[in-house]
């Protein structure tokens, strides 16, 4: 019995993939709501941005307007039916909820940032109208369509197709397109700008990190169960896919940064994206393609503990779902 065998496994005990269940429980502890994100200082910041930075932000939020919806669609239409494990599907259900919260967050963000109705509609239509965003969307749709018609994963070829889709969404879309977008947000935050966007994005990013980790966990599980699937042909396909994703994201960067933003050049952004792509390859046990280094020191700030002064920022470091009963003799 393997994870991708067709069917609707309903039995949680004995649990075959307890790690998926643990991820489900951890995700619940990170619950957050859009109402907790305070966007009011962002409005003042937006007025302070240069024209070039305004352009960057407007493009960025236009991408966010549809990004998570695309991921949610793939989850429902492609992933959920094929990951045949009730605990795995529990996690995916949770992920779907999180994607919905992200969509709501970016909806709220655009409604707040773009008060003009026509301009707002234009931002939401970016996926059709703005070439740099449309190209990324086409890339996503191509991979959604690649397995959309497939009802069950019977053959080896089917399973390979499924894995490619999964890797695409984890490594290229959540792992590269979103990571690229987060870099702009964190760049602005490291300069003290758009805290509301940054704190919401921080929570989105925390969720996305888990989505990616879950997807790679599924990939690893399948590779353990069916080692021959991940052959040289598939490795080649993964590399090609990532290379295409990097190009999509680089042309997006050239659009965002076209008016000149001090501290973030398109060349640095390309270097960064290549570096991220190499990291995705490393997780899959593949050799790096680019050997690029991370040029953005501000990304290092995302890797260390945060300490907020509550006068200034809402503290994000709490959990929900704390358990236990009143006792007086526990160690602390």
């Amino acid at each position, binding site marked *: 019995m393997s994870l991708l065998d067709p069917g609707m496994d309903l039995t949680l005990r004995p649990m075959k993939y307890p790690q998926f269940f643990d991820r489900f429980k951890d995700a619940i502890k990170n619950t957050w709501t859009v*109402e907790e994100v305070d966007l009011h200082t962002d409005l003042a910041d937006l007025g302070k941005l240069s024209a070039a930075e305004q352009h960057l932000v407007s493009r960025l939020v236009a991408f966010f307007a549809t990004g998570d919806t695309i991921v949610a669609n793939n989850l429902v239409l492609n992933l959920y039916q094929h990951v045949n494990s009730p605990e795995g599907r529990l996690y995916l259900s949770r992920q779907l909820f999180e994607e919905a919260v992200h969509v709501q967050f970016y909806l709220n963000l655009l409604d707040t940032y773009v008060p003009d109705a026509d301009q707002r509609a234009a931002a939401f239509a970016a996926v059709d109208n703005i070439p740099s965003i449309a190209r990324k969307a086409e890339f996503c749709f191509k991979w959604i369509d690649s397995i959309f018609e497939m009802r069950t994963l019977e053959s080896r070829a089917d399973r390979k197709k499924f894995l490619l889709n999964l890797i695409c969404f984890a490594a290229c879309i959540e792992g590269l397109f979103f990571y690229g977008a987060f870099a702009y947000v964190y760049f602005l935050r490291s300069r003290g700008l758009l805290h509301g966007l940054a704190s919401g994005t921080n929570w989105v990013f*925390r969720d996305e990190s888990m989505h990616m980790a879950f997807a790679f966990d599924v990939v690893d599980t399948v590779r353990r169960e069916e080692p021959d699937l991940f052959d040289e042909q598939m490795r080649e396909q993964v590399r090609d896919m990532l290379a295409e994703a990097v190009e999509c994201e680089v042309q997006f960067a050239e659009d965002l940064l076209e008016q000149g933003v001090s501290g973030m050049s398109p060349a640095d952004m390309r270097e960064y994206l290549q570096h991220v792509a190499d990291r995705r390859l490393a997780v899959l046990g593949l050799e790096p393609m680019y050997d690029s280094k991370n040029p953005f020191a501000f990304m290092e700030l995302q890797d260390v503990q945060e300490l907020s002064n509550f006068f200034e920022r809402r503290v994000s470091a709490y959990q929900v779902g704390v358990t236990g009963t009143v006792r007086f003799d526990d160690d602390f």
Partner: protein
Amino acid sequence: MTVTRDTTVPEQRRHVMRVRKRNGDLDTVDVNKIVKAVERWVGDLDEVDPLRVATRTISGLYAGATTAELDKLSIQTAAELIGEEPQYSRLAARLLIAYVDKEVRLQGVASFSQSIRHAQENGLIADSTAAFVRRNARELDDAVDPAGDLRFEYFGLRTVADRYLLRHPESRLVVETPQYWLLRVACGLSHEPAEAIGFYRLMSSLAYLPSSPTLFNSGTRHTQMSSCFLVDSPRDELDSIYERYHQVAKLSKFSGGIGISWSRVRGRGALIRGTNGRSNGIVPFLKTLDAGVAAVNQGGRRKGAACVYLEPWHPDVEEFLELRDNTGEESRRTHNLNLANWIPDEFMRRVEADEDWSLVDPSDAPELPDLFGEAFDDAYRKAEKKAVKTVKARDLYGRMMRTLAQTGNGWMTFKDASNRLSNQTGAPGNTIHLSNLCTEILEVNSDDETAVCNLGSINLAAHVTADGVDWAKLRETVRTAVVFLDRVIDINYYPSPQAARSNPRWRPIGLGLMGLQDAFFTLRLPFDSAAAKEFSTRVQEEIFLTALETSAGLAAESGSHPAFARTRAAEGDLHPDLWGAEPAQPDRWAALRKDIGKHGLRNSLLVAIAPTATIASIAGCYECIEPQVSNLFKRETMSGEFLQVNTYLVRELKARGLWTSSIRERIKRAEGSVRDLTELPDDVRELFRTAWELPQKALVDLAAARAPYIDQSQSLNLFLSAPTIGKLSSMYLYAWKAGLKTTYYLRSRPATRIQQATVSIAPVEAVACSLENPESCEACQ
């Protein structure tokens, strides 16, 4: 914002990069010029590489950028190298000083007195301060110490530049340098140039800093310099509730943090005789307070902030504990308010004995908020006959613990200890009804008197070397600090009449401490060692004793504070006596008692340990009495994000030849812990444990040991990375039994974290290792 549509891209010539100078001319970017500009500021910083800063700056630059952008980018670039080499923090700070200096000079300001005149012409400076500076211009101008700027770390200076320096009302350019700022603060509180210069030198050495409102406002047209306001609960009627909203808004506008009780307002379902309706309880009123607090912007420097206190017998206490939950009905959530429980001993006794607890409506027992000790116990037991509801004390306590774990809020503060151990509650009718926004201030108040406190903190790091404390210097600092804190009381602008009434009668001040962790690192004392506890207690005794001596001296000059006769000190009971503590300096205490007997005290309260979040950053030391949270972390503030690295650890690692990129990566991967750096000896790893790795019992024990020498209280944060109700209920019961008056935030950590983007990926086979516990394996994160 407006959405940009597709535009034609201006053709950029990338081969020759040009920048626009401040006079409008174009200039080619030359790496050597940037190197030279950076080199000027290197001085004694032997580990920094100007070429590296220059090349990285150029790589982030775009054609047509301004030279101001170029300067800013080189500052930012230098700051981003701090994680590799802490000296870049000093370099970035110096580049920033040069930037600020240029901005000030370009407005034609070449001296301190010119800066004051320029600021006054633009409506920023009080006439009296301007006149004082004009009279003593030469002496004050000569006192400015240019070397003072070199003492700042980057994060501290950035904070100063962004938020503390006065700005021109229209151009928004800063009109003072950091040294002018500190001298301006000193002049705003001085009668003579000599004392202004002395106070300026103390602050410029970063050995002591007053709290932010004083640093913001001293010498300006709005001299609101107090940090804390403690507002009594509104009376149980609509007019009083709306009066409180108004008062809170006024206090908040001028940078004050608000504590406000709500225990007197009737609960949900209680009868309203005037309309024969039923009350909706306190939650809708707190929702209004929440919105009011969020609307007040403290001069653009920070948002308003308030903490609501409620006693646990109030019928709405369960809904109160849900106000910060992130689920449930939004109209019953207050995301901007902090929450604190004001807990009588009777509640804790019943929790321990597993008994019932009655919820009583304040309209049925209006006397309860004004009582403590046995008087409260008796009245409460009588009032229980009219209980609205009965719950298990442990269930409610468990609910409090859950709120702490999930929100960090719902601070546990203890009504009886706070009142029993206070100098102000000696005479009947004086009750402490709540603490403040940061749980370190405990002062009596009433319906028409709002308690006020102005604060300042000694940087202990500046008084300690590896040989120990410089006690003489510490005493001198305390004396100066007390004199200038006392002075604020008379010069202060009080935003509400209730605040103006209380302060002249009691004249309380709150002298605090920061950099205790620095002292422990310097002296190599692990935070939880017996020696650390003894050290912290003796330091606190010295500070409190010297503060009392100074206050008795001020009383000899200017008379005791008007309410002195109603204090416990007037009866001969000083704070350590209330605790039954045995001081280490009995002779000095005996002499002090005689002095107090003769002259009284100028101040009813003297010492409080505030959190010092911002001023510790400016001084470049660890916050108040707190252990470090991590050897490597970032601060998030309105100015941006800042990497902070433990320089004591870096020194230690460098001395052992271990400050390498692979060690740095391991520390980052371990989220700032050095527990697994086995290259380091056990005692070193023990010294550099983080707050998450220390037994919290030790934090409580240290706090309890120094408490006899703190006549107000301390902002004591506790840290549990994965809190459970069992751990929390044990910890807070212990804190109560140890006699603590108050505790502050419970700090905890998210269940999972963002995937690290800049540490190397673990090999693929490690991925399968973590089935039992995904949190513990970096590969999954």
